[in-house]
């Protein structure tokens, strides 16, 4: 089976006033379909850069990145947008819902940029809302929802395009402990159903729930462990 994402000796450098910053050095990583990976590390370790590369928001300076069977290291900006719309599900720390859209419309946004919304897909967005337990809030605005509910909408949104993997950036950073547990349970359930999940976090409790923990330091992978509890 083709892995969800493969990274081969990927390097990312930023040219700043003070000189070149090596955000990532020769990172090779393979994420098989169905995996649940936590990417951890102190700030400045390259977590965000790795996330941006995996999320196709950025391209590596050198090295290769494959999503599914597609090489995306040299893809155009528009092609990257298409990949994001079709194959990646984003979850952010601050939910990042669009305030003027309703719950249902927010869930549909990636479909909108895939260029087609038909009845079947609209039905699917309802199903996704029900899956995260918000089937009765379809017409609500994000501001009318609690933080946990907003994050559920974001999860539903990340599932709508049936992505290669869900990329979660500190998904529980803004939530209290009870809600955090709810969200993590939801993510765990999704993984059980076969969804690939990549979660970027610095909270050990969050990392513990993953099947695999990848630790970064100074732009390189310093450890990559399968967790024993699975």
């Amino acid at each position, binding site marked *: 089976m083709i892995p969800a994402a493969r990274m081969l000796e990927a390097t990312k450098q930023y040219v700043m006033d003070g000189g070149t910053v090596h955000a990532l050095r020769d990172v090779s990583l393979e994420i098989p379909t169905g995996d649940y990976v936590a990417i951890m590390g102190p700030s400045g370790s390259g977590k965000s850069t790795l996330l941006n590369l995996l999320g196709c*928001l950025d391209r590596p300076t050198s090295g290769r990145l494959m999503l599914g069977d597609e090489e995306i290291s040299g893809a155009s900006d528009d092609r990257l947008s298409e990949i994001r719309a079709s194959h990646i599900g984003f979850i952010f720390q601050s939910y990042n819902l669009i305030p003027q859209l309703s719950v249902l419309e927010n869930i549909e946004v990636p479909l909108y*940029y895939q260029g087609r919304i038909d009845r079947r897909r609209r039905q699917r967005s309802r199903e996704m809302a029900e899956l995260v337990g918000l089937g009765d809030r379809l017409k609500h605005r994000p501001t009318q929802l609690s933080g946990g509910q907003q994050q559920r909408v974001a999860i539903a949104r990340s599932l709508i395009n049936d992505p290669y993997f869900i990329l979660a950036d500190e998904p529980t950073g803004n939530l209290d402990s009870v809600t955090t547990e709810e969200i993590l349970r939801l993510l765990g359930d999704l993984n059980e159903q076969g969804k690939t999940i990549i979660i970027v976090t610095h909270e050990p409790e969050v990392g513990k729930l993953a099947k695999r923990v990848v630790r970064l330091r100074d732009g390189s992978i310093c450890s990559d462990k399968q967790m024993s509890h699975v």
Partner: protein
Amino acid sequence: MPFLWLRTWRLGVKSLLLHPLRSLLTVLGIFIGVASVVWLLAIGEGISRKTQEQIEGLGATNIIIRSIKPSEESIENVGSSRSIVPYGITRADFDRLITTVPTIDRALPIREVRYRFGYLGRNIEGRLVGCTPEYAEVNQLEVDRGRFLSDTDDHKKWNHCVLAAGTAEKLFPFENPIGRAIRIEQAFYLVVGVMKERTPTAGIGGSLTAQEFNNDVYIPIRTLWSRIGDIIVTRRTGSFEGEMIELSQVTLRVDKVENVLKTAALVKETLKLHHRKQDYAVTVPLELLKQAKTTRLMFIVFMGLIAAISLVVGGIGIMNIMLATVTERTREIGIRRALGAKRGDITRQFLVETVALSVVGGATGVLGGLTCRPLIGALRGAMQRAAPDVFEQLPEVIREVTPIVVPWSIPLAFGISVTIGVIFGLYPAIRAAAMDPIEALRHE
């Protein structure tokens, strides 16, 4: 694809409605611009069409020559011994013009004198016009009762006269004037006809002042020459003043419109040879018409310029608002980019908003433009009631202007406003699209 556009539009309108006041003010800028284009052009058109009608009323194929009193200093040259100085167009001029200028189709000699008319005990003052039978047709006078003067009246120098409506009303309030005789100077004239009432013509400037027809008495010009003569003595306080004029006005009709300007030049040349002083004036309505058309064009350009400025100001307003909106919605742009929006999608989204603003501004502006006629009427009425003195002092053009909405100004104004929306919206939209999605997502 049309479905997606529909969604983009819906989304754009939704975003605009998030800030209703802001959107309203932006629309207002475009509204004022568009409405002012329609208004200014309508007012300009109203003024120029009025002038044009007045000139056309004089006849496009006509050339009008009028006698005018030469200035004081040129009279002194002749010598102060003569108290009565002859001036103006002479019968000799008239004959010369008819015989030498071949393109003249018809020539109407007219002699006007202010006089007193009497019937029984009633006396009124009015204008005595010596003319030929064609006078009625040329001045669009219609016969009410009886007939107008005939060629026979003229050739036989009969003492026949025709009364204008006002004169008839005052001299014969109770009787039928036809068949009666009125007194002019020492002689009696048989009334053969009465004319219908006619609205006065407006003055065109130059040598043509406004003409009032309602207090006229018309007699054959030959009768006037032989009975009254060329010298008119009017009594002023303490002294007499004399004038000697053979013809007050000659209206020439040229055979074809193409020949009017050539003929006018020839007429001027012919007259110049026999007049040392400038005691006549030649008015060519066609020339005036051409001038009026040039003026109208200048007016349109001028008004267009003013309107264009206000539209550009409106456009800058749009751009300003959109730049603010883009900054404010940086995060939304980041989210959309992360979820798969291409640069083109973002550009389109913001462009749709500016176009929506300018379309609404344009449409309401056109509606606002259409109100100019009733609104100006109401304004005039209000001013007439509030400050009648000031109103009376306004020039006639302003008092009587009726705006005429020029049909092409509506699509023009609307088109320009939408174009301005696109042009001024493009930069903010492109700026929004050019943002780095990672930076935009991080934006607070």
